[in-house]
């Protein structure tokens, strides 16, 4: 998958919804409406039988077969966290660690508080050879990452807008019911603090997610100082190593690792999360 695809469309393979409808739905202004659509969708289009079939294959040990069905489901738009998670498990059992990691990360980006996904990612990462940890990490940044980790960017965005709406509500009530003024002083201060916090969280989460990430697929790949085979080798990465995409050419991506090392990686040896 091209990186540019992901930047502009959604993270799943082949999003098929129309952009206008999508933006409308994602705004959650018509929450009930979308829920209704979702329910209808579930009833008529939900690939429940295929999902069950794939699960049965997984149970019997046919991990390749199971993975095939899950992949097909995703292509058909069934890009739910459960499908990604099960696909990741199939890949893992099939020995494809990097692909498993990609699918786990996709599932986690949908449901970041799912303990099973977190556990499996931890198990998988314990079997990866590259140590990718921030060097002399500052405690505050670490703490922030821990804090925003369990939330999706959409959740934080929604909360930010919600608090903004609340703030306006107070301002409105304050204007038209001056009697309530005594109460509103404190409430407004608290709301304002919340607003600032939410904005800060949004900023940190945005920092985290604004660069798409890639996972190395090859067993071993040389990362170079420039987007060419002629460039000097900077370091070597192994299967499952993750990095943020900072730049790209037609065949290469510039990745930055968690320890702030960066270099160019051939696109064919990695895949976007």
């Amino acid at each position, binding site marked *: 998958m091209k990186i540019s695809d992901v930047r502009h469309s959604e993270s799943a393979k082949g999003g098929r919804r129309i952009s206008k409808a999508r933006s409308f739905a994602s705004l959650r202004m018509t929450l009930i409406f979308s829920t209704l659509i979702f329910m209808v969708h579930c009833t008529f289009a939900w690939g429940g039988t295929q999902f069950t079939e794939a699960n049965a294959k997984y149970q019997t040990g046919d991990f390749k077969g199971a993975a095939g069905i899950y992949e097909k489901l995703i292509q058909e738009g069934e890009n739910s*966290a459960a499908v990604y998670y099960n696909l990741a498990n199939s890949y893992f059992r099939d020995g494809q660690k990097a692909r498993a990691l990609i699918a786990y990360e*996709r599932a986690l980006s949908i449901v970041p508080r799912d303990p099973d996904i977190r556990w499996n990612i931890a198990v998988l990462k314990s079997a990866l050879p590259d140590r990718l940890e921030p060097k002399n990490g500052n405690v505050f940044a670490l703490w922030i990452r821990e804090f925003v980790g369990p939330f999706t960017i959409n959740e934080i965005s929604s909360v930010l807008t919600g608090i903004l709406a609340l*703030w306006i509500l107070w301002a409105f009530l304050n204007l038209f019911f001056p009697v309530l003024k005594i109460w509103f002083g404190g409430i407004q201060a608290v709301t304002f603090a919340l607003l600032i916090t939410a904005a800060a969280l949004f900023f940190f989460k945005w920092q985290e997610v604004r660069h798409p990430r890639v996972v190395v697929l090859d067993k071993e790949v040389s990362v170079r100082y420039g987007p060419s085979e002629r460039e000097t080798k900077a370091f070597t990465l192994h299967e499952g190593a993750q990095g943020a995409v900072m730049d790209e050419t037609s065949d290469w991506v510039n990745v930055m690792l968690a320890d702030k090392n960066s270099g160019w990686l051939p696109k064919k040896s990695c895949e976007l999360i």
Partner: protein
Amino acid sequence: MIRISKLKHEARSTKHEYFYKFYLASCFLLLVSCKIAFAEVSIETSVSRSRLAVGEELTLDIIITNAQGGISRPTITSIDGFSSYSQGRSQEISIINGRTTSRNIFSYVLIANATGKKTIGPFEVDISGRNYKIAPVQVEVVPDTGYYPGSPSPSSSGQGPVYSPPSRALPSGDVSNQDIFVKAWLDKDEVYVNEPAVLTYTIYTRLSATYKGFDKEPVTTGFWVEDFPPEKTMKKTEQFFNGRRYVAADVRKAALFPTQAGVFTVDTGVISSTVEVRQQDDFDSFFSGNVFGRRGSAYPSFITTQIFQKTINPDKVILTVKALPEQGRPASFSGAVGDYRIENSIDKKEVEEGNPVTHRVRIIGQGNINTVQTPSLSKLENFKIYDSSSSANISKERLVVEGEKVTETVLVPKKAGTYTIPALDFSYFDPKTQSYKELKTAPQALTVRPGAVSAEEEPVNALGGVRPVEKEDVTLLSQDIRYIKTDGAASPRASAPLYRNSLYWVLNFVLVLLSAWFAAMGIRRERGMTDLKGGRLRRSHGAARKRLKSAAALLKKDKHDEFFAEIEKAMNVYFADKLNVSAQSVNADFLSEILGGRNIEPEILNEIRKLFDELAHGRFSSVQKGKDDMKDVYQRVDRLITRFEKVKLK
């Protein structure tokens, strides 16, 4: 490398060559056919080496077998390119099956002093008055390799007489490296990680030397070192090294177990020894001295000895350590290299619950037994496992590090039943076959009988109460991924990030604008309520204008009294608002009093006074003013207010 050239029974016969040949043939026939009891004379020439460097020595042995009667010394004339010294003569006589064999050996040491292919001999020897010819020997002398610099060169020419001792300068003060040195050497150049390489220090000396120990111990970073105990009697051997004869003895041996792969240079340290040097010139006694203890000499040892301290730096040794192969490495491998076997046992086959059982694992074999990791029992259900203790026993006989490691683990069964203590996997790398070997311990059956104590306590709980049990942490036995999700219908789907959606930001922007507007409104209202004076000031002009307007309307309607009342009110309220006082208190005196102190044009003040007067006059006089007057008043008030607006109070 001993080259023997044989000259068999060749009598010297210059005159009758043919006769000689005939004689030889007939003798041979006689020998074969009659098997007579006495053997014929044979002379062999042997050299210790056929190739040597300038300054090096070779030993020439002339072996005369089965010579009857007296043998004179071989006539050795000067040998071209060599200095020669006699080493003496030895005689061996053996009688086997009544057959007597005798050997006479004349030994000579030859020191080369010119390069090239050299022929040693031919020489002659008289046996029982007969003259025999000794076959010549070819040797090659190559230029000095300079391996040991500072070697004392042998006597200059080699033209000198055979028996004369050389004018060889013995080391004085300093004992040169050539006469004593230490070689540190490894039995292998290349080993695997944890495979031992034996480091040996061999001292080579031509002098009487005593080994004192190490001034500086070898640096063995990166190795686990097992020193072999010193032998009780140091074995001395005689060795040729670079063509010279040395007494060699191994002074120290240690097994080095490399702990990591790579190429290592071992700093072999500094060895200390004392050297006894005899201050003498006599060559023969030098060789017959205590150094070699060889053939005796007729010379008495009249000599003085001197003892020197000598420190010796052996050359560093280089060892290549190979990493253990990845291929075929068993999961249970934990670094053991060598040759091992494993045994296990339990001390009791049957035990009451709560009583300890000792599981003992013995690993026996060759290798670095100290670092061998005994496989440990993983979690066992219904057993409490206590930390194990291990002891290692190492022997270092015959240059092999071997021994056994015994690990004892105490198990306490918590529940009655029949259990099997599972087999433990142990694997090691065998450098001989270059392969991994896997071993298993035997599974041990254990019967656990119910304990007597618990049976006694049972009645306490007869009524169905519970007895608290000891809590234990739930520990993970292994790490694996969790199972797949079986219900996918309710699972949330991937959605596009909101922050990439412009509508989201438009909404947020609208919300921010709205809140800003509400806030502004609120602030404005609040200010209006709190700032009364400012409000009046701000409103004063508008209010006055309003009143003037209604006054103008009254003027049009020609309502005289109402007009004046309105005008006056306009004036009063206007100035009251301006000065923040009540409208009732406003009059001409009050205004001139308040405004007089301020920087206001007197013209305005006059006009104010005049207008107030006129207004009071107009309102209260019985004479009604004309419409023109009213208009005039109106215009003047209007002008006054306009002018007063420009006045800055304060």
